[in-house]
């Protein structure tokens, strides 16, 4: 009876045991990111920091997913992306299905995959992260899936099953506006997008530096929509080229997705000195340069950091974008001044780490007290900050420590202190448009409509400066609201006609 051992090799149960389990590989597979270009290399150019996942890596990293009963990644994703599902599909090499699943809830997955603060959203909530096994690399897989889809030609312009007569005007070609445009176009609506810049994309094209989001990605997205029949109106400023009322007459519904662009100021001595710049102006100039344009304020050196000692004020993602841009422009040194500490900064932890690698110096717990200098700024007087006990909201309040001042030498300051809403009703010539106490536009939570019939709003203009992913969500929800609104309207007119 020598069969004892050979028998085991034959027996189906043993075979099935040896069959590879596809998911839940985190037990054996460690977290991995796509290859990150070395800091010395990447500070030389504006190309993206991360390379794309190799196929094998993407499969392996996706397979780490635990396929939880409650996918906290989805729970904490503003778009409620079905992350475990496309991770499983990716792990099984079913990329086209993965792409379809991913794009079903997200208009720009490859963009979110690059610029979302994953460590605060999906990846930060990932069960594996919570339980100290290191998160699944969700963002990178997300980008990988849709990048592959583009390569393979799976990404197609919206092709509505039927055209509808109703038309929608969208003010603002940023993520919220474009997300809405995409959804509405798929339903067959006639969509016109108005933007005051000379390119579509809003923040995506001009606000975010190329090393985080390659502009080619944004341009192929805007082109895709145009191919699908979305009409663009560039350098079209509401209030200048038309009023909101004009648009309401022209379209059956209007969506305001104009974003917030009014920079927050800082009221300290010396704020009027030369060499002190607004973050957005600085970033736009850099991005336009990158897109091969002539930009006077850059070319004359005003917005070029090359050879300068730069200080960026602020702790958000914009501050970091400015700092890292300055570095790439050839700044002598770049410091980032923030009044709270690392743990309490709003920007993405990953980005802080990347920035530090590249040579940015963070000056925590520091607030500018005065800008010093004759005509242009030459130094900043800085005060040390102590963080007090957390208040009800859980945030620690900064308190200035007396006699703690010190000075930082600088010849270029970039203020990145956040943005506020412009006075849209006045700007758009529609005084009746309702606002919130924050100055943003007020909408009804369920219908997404403003107080004006047929006028909707989405994105930063309703919530203040926020994430791209929030803008996409708002845009998609507003599109649903518009669809319901137009559907109801069509129903009414049908009823009246009969």
């Amino acid at each position, binding site marked *: 009876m020598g*069969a004892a*051992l050979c028998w085991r090799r034959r027996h189906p149960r043993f075979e099935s045991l040896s069959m590879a389990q596809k998911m839940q590989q985190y037990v054996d597979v460690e977290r991995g990111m796509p290859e990150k270009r070395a800091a010395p290399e990447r500070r030389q150019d504006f190309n993206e920091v991360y390379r794309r996942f190799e196929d094998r890596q993407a499969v392996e990293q996706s397979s780490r997913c635990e396929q939880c009963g*409650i996918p906290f990644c989805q729970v904490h994703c503003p778009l409620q992306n079905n992350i475990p599902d496309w991770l499983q599909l990716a792990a099984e090499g079913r990329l086209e299905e993965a792409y379809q699943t991913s794009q079903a809830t997200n208009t720009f997955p490859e963009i979110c995959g690059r610029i979302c603060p994953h460590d605060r959203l999906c990846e930060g909530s990932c069960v594996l992260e919570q339980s100290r096994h290191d998160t699944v690399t969700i963002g990178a897989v997300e980008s990988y899936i849709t990048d592959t889809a583009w390569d393979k030609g799976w990404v197609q312009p919206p092709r509505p099953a039927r055209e509808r007569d109703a038309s929608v005007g969208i003010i603002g070609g940023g993520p919220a506006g474009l997300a809405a445009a995409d959804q509405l176009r798929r339903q067959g609506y006639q969509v016109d997008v108005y933007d005051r810049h000379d390119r579509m994309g809003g923040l995506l094209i001009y606000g975010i530096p190329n090393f985080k989001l390659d502009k080619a990605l944004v341009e192929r997205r805007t082109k895709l929509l145009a191919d699908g029949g979305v009409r663009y109106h560039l350098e079209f400023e509401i209030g200048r080229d038309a009023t909101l009322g004009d648009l309401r007459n022209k379209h059956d519904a209007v969506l305001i997705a104009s974003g917030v662009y009014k920079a927050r100021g800082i009221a300290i001595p010396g704020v009027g000195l030369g060499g002190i710049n607004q973050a957005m102006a600085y970033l736009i100039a850099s991005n336009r340069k990158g897109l091969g344009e002539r930009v006077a304020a850059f070319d004359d050196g005003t917005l070029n950091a090359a050879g300068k000692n730069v200080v960026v004020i602020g702790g958000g993602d914009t501050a970091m974008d400015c700092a890292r841009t300055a570095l790439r422009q050839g700044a002598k040194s770049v410091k980032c001044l923030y009044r709270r500490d690392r743990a309490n900064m709003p920007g993405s932890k990953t980005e802080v780490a990347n920035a530090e690698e590249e040579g940015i110096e963070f000056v925590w717990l520091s607030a500018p007290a005065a800008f010093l200098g004759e005509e242009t700024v030459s130094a900043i007087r800085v005060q040390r900050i102590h963080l007090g006990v957390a208040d009800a909201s859980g945030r620690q309040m900064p308190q200035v420590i007396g006699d703690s001042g010190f000075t930082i030498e600088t010849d270029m300051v970039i203020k990145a202190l956040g943005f506020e809403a412009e006075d849209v009703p006045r700007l758009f010539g529609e005084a009746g448009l309702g606002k919130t106490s924050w100055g943003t536009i007020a909408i009804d939570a369920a219908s997404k409509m403003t107080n004006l019939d047929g006028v909707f709003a989405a994105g930063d203009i309703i919530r203040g400066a926020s994430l791209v992913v929030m803008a996409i969500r708002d845009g998609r929800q507003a599109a649903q609201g518009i669809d319901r609104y137009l559907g109801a309207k069509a129903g009414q007119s049908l009823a009246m006609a009969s």
Partner: protein
Amino acid sequence: MPETGETFVRNWRANARRLAQKGLYDPAHEHQSCGVGLVAAIDGRARREVVDAGIKALQRLWHRGAVDADGKTGDGAGIHVQVPQDFFKAHIRRTGHEPSRGSLAVGMVFLPKTDLGAQEKCRSIVETEILRFGYTIYGWRQVPVNVEIIGEKANVTRPEIEQIMIANNLGVGGDQFQTHLYIIRRRIEQQVLAKNISEFYICSLSCRTIVYKGMFLAEQLSAFYPDLLDERFVSNFALYHQRYSTNTFPTWRLAQPFRMLAHNGEINTLAGNVNWTASHEPRMASEVLGEYIDDVRPIIQPGSSDSEALDAMFELLVRCGRPAPAAEALLIPESINQNTTMPEAHKALFTYCTNVMEPWDGPAAICATDGRWAIAGLDRNGLRPLRYTITNNDLLIVGSETGMVEVPEAEVVEKGRVGPGGMIAIDLLEGRFYHDKEIKDLIAGRQPYGEWVKNITRPDSFIKNKAKSSPPLTAEQLRRRQTAFGLTMEDLELILHPMVEMGVETTGSMGDDTPLAVLSDNYRGLHHFFRQAFSQVTNPPIDSLRERRVMTLRTRLGNLGNILVEEASQCNLLLLESPVLSNAEFEAMRNHMGETACEIDCTFDPSSDSQPLRSALDRICREAEDAVRGGVTHLFLTDMAMCKERATIPMILATGAVHGHLVRQSLRTFTSLNIRSAECFDVHYFAVLIGAGATTVNANLAEESIADRHRRGLFGKMTLKDCLDNYKTAIDKGLLKIMSKMGIGVISSYRGGCNFEAVGLSRALVAEFFPGMATRISGIGLSGMESKVIEMHAKAYAEEATPLPVGGFYRFRSGGEAHGHQGRLIHILQNAVNTESYTIYKRYSEGISDLPPIYLRDLLDFKSANPPVSADEMESITAIRKRLVSPAISLGALSPEAHETLSIAMNRIGAKSASGEGGEDPARYKRRANGDNASSAIKQVASGRFGVTAEYLNNCHEIEIKMAQGAKPGEGGQLPGRKVTELIAALRMSTPGVTLISPPPHHDIYSIEDLAQLIYDLKQINPDASVCVKLVARAGVGTIAAGVAKAKADVILISGHDGGTGASPQSSIKYAGLPWEMGLSEVHQVLTLNRLRHNVKLRVDGGLKTGRDIVIAAMLGAEEFGIGTTSLIAMGCIMVRQCHSNTCPVGICTQNPDLREKFTGTPEKVVNLFTFLAEEASEILASLGVTSFDEIIGRTDLLMQVSRGAAHLDDLDLNPLLVKSDPGPFPARCTLEGRNEVPDTLDARMIDDAKHLLDAGEKMQLTYSVRNTHRAVGARVSSLITRRYGMKGLDPDHFTIRLRGSAGQSLGAFAVQGMTLEVHGDANDYVGKGLSGGIIVLRPPLPSALESYKNVIIGNTVLYGATAGKLFAAGQAGDRFCVRNSGAQAVVEGCGSNGCEYMTNGVAVILGPVGANFAAGMTGGMAFVHDPENVFPLKVNPDSVIHLRIETQYWEDVVKVLIGQHVRRTHSRFAYRLLNDWELERDSFWQVVPMEMLDKLEHPVTREDKENWRAAGE
């Protein structure tokens, strides 16, 4: 003031009626079980001795029945004997008449006692019907009874007991007289029924036999009926029975024996059998009965118990000409697959039987007589004991136990047992005894069955060959159809894909926390409303994996004939191996049938008229009826015509409608009913279709979906055929599993039985389409269903195609079903317990109540007229916390860290944690240095008995018997080898890395009296602990609980279907069991009704999350509350639901050491949770103006329904849950102090006599004589030894107890090292149960002339869960010898079926033949079987073991040493001869080795392996 019998009876009746109408109680769920037996004179000569023996035997059976609190009212007992003609003739002569020659007939009649009018009416009916047939009457005789000895309650319900004596004045032959009496009796019964008189009952009406029975204790039989003491009362047989019922109401007619048989057990297939009997009725015709056939219909009286129904069918068959043994073979056939050595003639017989009729599946031990034959038999599973003794003066004594009739050993010529599917018989006329094979030879020879069964067509081959698939659906058609039935990606990926890839159903974990179908906003297929029924306590489930051979899916198609005759044409049938057909097979079969088949389109135009679904159902019923009346024998119901314009009737509804319509038209048996359904997708849907009456099922869309995925390359290299085969395999296995939960082995008996309970279906809809199925809270009706179907159809065929949604039913997804455990709330709760913040906890609790309705309790709210009370008046939080329990989660599922944390936390607050199955590290029994106690207060005893030792059972305050688990009631479990770490293996006494199986049933509980026995055993081994029995909510759980309470349980735990699990099949998690709200409320109502409530504590668990849940549970009747999943969440669980895959990232449900390091739970967090729950509950109580929990238990008047569910429902009525039962003079809550004590056994005397041992540790030897009523001998003493000296504190043989006679059940249960029990005689079932180191020796007594190896010496289920010790028995053992043995060494001289099943350790040496299915599921240990005949290879189940002749010296020595010990201790001559002739015998031994052990054995078993391993090691 105590309640008088009279008030009790009056109140009980009123109460029961009210509860049945308005509450949750259904008398149909009453169960009964018992002991049964037969004494017969083999020579057929009537003797007084026989009757005497019968009466004596009953006196030895009392422990298998139950006794009321009055100590007098029993559940019933009776005896069936020959009519003593002399006795009655003498009586007639005394009245002045001269009886005519020949046999007179006697009717034993129960008449209404108090209603004299009714009594007179009954007499007149009886007389009229007798006279109408032309017979004359000698007169009535008032049967003398002694009412002194019966209980007050029994007396109040006592009927007037009279006998009517009838002359055979027509001079007809005995058989014909008997037939006429049968017809007369049926006519009388119909007449009385028509007059609405309920107390009337005819025990027997026969010229040959008579039944005496009633509601007294078994030993009081002859005292109550002095007739039986009369010397003239002679008989050649005496059939007797002791009943155990699940209520306390004494119902005289339900005492057994019935007219022909007495039954011990339960008929699992009852629902199907009753339905099919009704369907067969129109075709029944018999020469014997002729036109009288109409008088005997309906065969089964409405409201019959299972035994009564079986008796009725048995009687009919016998009256129509079948001898009793043949009737038994037809009704309860042996399994052909199980018996691999079955002769061809028997196979033909049983093939014929199973094709003619649907078997009545046990568990059943029956003793029956038709006047000429006396038989005793077991069903195919053989789950009831049946032992027999034959004496040298021609007496046969058969019964549930050996030793019931004391026979001097010298007179015994044979001691045997009846095996599964076996039968013994006596032809009383010819005076001959038949063994199993002999009687079957006789029956099989009655007709040319072998020729007949050749007529059966087996189309499997030709439909497979001809199978050609129709063109596939386009991608769009596919997606639209999938959308129409609400399919999601989750269904395809999580459910379908694994079935195709692996051929098995997907496993999931944690409980179901999605809304009941009726409460969901989403579309839920009709199958979601059907909850699978399952067995617990009163009948056992089957192991569909390891005991596959007693099960069959064989499906016959065609025109079923007249079951009363035997003829060749009955085999003109098609026989499929499985009802599951592929598309191609379905079409091939359809084509093959040609003209004999008719296809019925089950789609409808959703826009047609006002009630399109209703009209469509009417149409298909009409079409079906027309077709069958036109001669069609196969109906095909299909929904293939579905398209944009046509929506489908839910096929479950279509099936129920057509099946029901054909049954009502008496046409069902003329046709097969074949269903093609697109919605049918998972195994549950198949089961519902078949349960609703489908013959075959084709899941068309599932197959298309598989083909689509196959085209897309998702199944790798598998061919499409492989894929479809695997899917079918998975469904087949799933169907077997679902049937096995009910203990049903044969699909023909499952079909049409609707073994489900509906939750959320309207009463009207169920009454129309699924009659007989329980639906107690009503719900969605036809119109609601119609609107849902049309809505989904519109969505599916909308212009813009929508992709399939991702799902969310099994795992949370945004936009899918709501889940009770919600991501954000979990974090809030964890935050609350981490920071000890009650404020944050309240946010969690508010969040829970803001969820959409998920559970029934979400539709309830509190009401109270009392003003709130202040917090300082309240019962303390500490007191409330003591009511909380962390329910059983085994170490094995949980990591050791998590398990200990729970125990420590619960002990700190004086509450209880339950250990779960799998033992506990004895190190935990010692107090920790910091004062913590890590020992679980409740120790669980589950079916696997892992780690259940004397020490384990003595280190607790409560012992919990897990009968079922909410997430998978009726199923066993499996701990895969990779989870069996060193620690777990040590606790479970097994080998690391080797799979451990928990069987579906407790192998010592197949019936309620068995549970009583286990409770008895546990109360012996731990004289202080109370005993809890865990049940799962289902319809009828109330009556089961009543039985459990009568079995002396102290706590009953009701689990909801939503209870957690470490691993269960998804369809079980989702579709089995009921919400605890329904179960708890029913249990509380029925216990109160039966005056049992105050003696038993009720506990509840299943998805309890907040203080509100706890208060609602208390108001529905619970005293204690288990919080499982939520307590895991407090320790850091985040509902990953991957417990089954050992990858729990938070280290709670895993054994992986790396993951265990991530565990962050602490006792403090758990304590915080339980404190918050108690505080919140206390707040609610205060707001209701109540100061303590005791005041609200069962107070349903403080609850009200606040929502009736969605608008489209017919109704949703929770009032049945809120009905209150009148408790009589007792409180409606538990007032028991301590525990319900059980009577003493021999140990009481032993303890007195063993003072020297127990006090001073001296070596002792004691001697007693023993009887079968002495149960669990040795357990109590073992407890004392364990407590004093430890389980291994004494040397072996330190304390020897010698016993003479027949030992009762559970001899030596949990006996510990140092104790030796030597029995000179024999023993019953469960010898050495849980043996913990003791030695048990059994040998025939000295005067015996029996050859030990040819006779039976011990019963069934020996050494169940034994962990150490030895057993030597000089004789054969019964079934399931060494089942789940994990350490004992044993030598016996033969054993019954399923030997060494699930064994994980230890050694079994069997020196004689073994029964079928040996070593099924054996994963550890070693067995040796002496088999000179070389038949063992046919008996072994090769799935998990290999067998080989002994090849290595090491193992040869092991065997020899054990046989040597056996010889020394038992003096077995047979064994001595084997040793003596060892050189000759050695090669007749087989060695049986579990495969998983092969690479783990220290000593190889093969010569070759030895070489290989050496090579591998280098």
